[in-house]
């Protein structure tokens, strides 16, 4: 891919990739990093794009891979910090650890914070469908799985989300807590 094409692609698709990264990561700083890294991969490996799919589905694939890698790193970091955490006195452990994620309050109050507790496949399918508005066929292309699997992940992801809400004891009417929002549609 020519640098000029990369510029154009970046200009055209950066906002949507950043939005997906924000929903996935829960804070704008990590979202910035993820989105920039996605386009860095585009700059480095743009010649691998064969044009058989849309550019943005290819970019979503890169983003999800990067997000998966970051989550794995974060999990390992938490595991290492857990060793130190266990050796601390109870008073010290009341303070938030350095390995704690820095999600913003808006994200924590939103349903996406609950979606983050679902499996990778369900979480990614829900992001691509309800945040990015992709068609089932496009999601299947991004996730490289059959169409039926996509629908199944979306359906069971929503069902799992519902279970999480029930376990939290939250009334759906209290979700999300954005002021001035019409909640009449919520169950």
């Amino acid at each position, binding site marked *: 891919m020519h*640098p000029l094409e*990369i*510029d154009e692609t*970046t*200009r055209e698709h*950066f*906002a949507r990739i*950043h*939005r997906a990264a*924000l*929903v996935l990561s829960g804070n*704008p700083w990590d*979202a*910035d990093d993820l*989105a*920039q890294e996605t*386009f*860095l991969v*585009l*700059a*480095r490996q*743009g010649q691998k794009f064969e044009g058989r799919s849309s550019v943005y589905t290819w970019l979503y694939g890169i983003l999800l891979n990067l997000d998966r890698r970051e989550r794995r790193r974060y999990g390992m970091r938490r595991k290492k910090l857990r060793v130190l955490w266990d050796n601390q006195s109870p008073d010290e452990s009341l303070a938030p650890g350095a390995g704690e994620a820095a999600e*913003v309050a*808006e*994200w924590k109050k*939103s*349903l*996406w914070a609950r*979606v983050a507790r679902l499996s990778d496949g369900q979480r990614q399918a*829900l*992001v691509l*469908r*309800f*945040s*990015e*508005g992709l068609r*089932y066929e496009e999601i299947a292309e991004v996730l490289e799985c059959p169409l*039926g699997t996509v*629908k*199944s992940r*979306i*359906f*069971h992801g*929503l*069902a799992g*989300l*519902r279970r999480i809400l029930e376990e939290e004891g939250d009334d*759906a009417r209290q*979700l*999300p807590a*954005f002021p001035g*929002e019409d909640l009449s*549609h*919520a*169950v």
Partner: protein
Amino acid sequence: MRFDPRLIHPDEPPERADGELDLPDHLAALAEQLADDAAHLSLKYPAEPPAQLSLAARLAREAEAVKRAGHARRARLLAWLSVATVAAVAVSTSIVLLSAGNPAQSPRQLSQAVDAALSEATVPGQAVASRTARVPHPPRPLGGVPGEPGPMLREVSAGPGSAALSLGDLSGPEMEALFDLLHRESPDVASVSF
């Protein structure tokens, strides 16, 4: 206990005729709320295109430059390797051809020649006139014929006086020194030709 397939819930989600998922109301509401939350987050924390774009563009250009430099470096390396290979082949071929043309270059043949020379030198008075030895050819004398070819080494007939030389009495280092003297061009030797 007998296997009852009804215990396993079907994995296939319900679909409408148009292929869309037929979500129950409570799941449809969750789906709608997810979309609203994503839109709200996006509005609250919008992307900052200028900084991101410049960075991405710079990275793209740098990546392209690095790639071009890498290609050029590889091309130069390949060219150098090709030249080196050709040169190595040429040198090897020359060595082989020279060795074939001059059998005395082979260590074994050289030792055989030395042995033969030793045996002939230690037998006095036997066909001394027919023996040949490689001696340094002196530079062409000042009064010489201009068109006469002048190889550095030439075969000359050894005179009767040279038969008195007993190579068998020489040690190894002395033999090497003798060969060095024979192969070296020396002004002293040149003066002999007069």
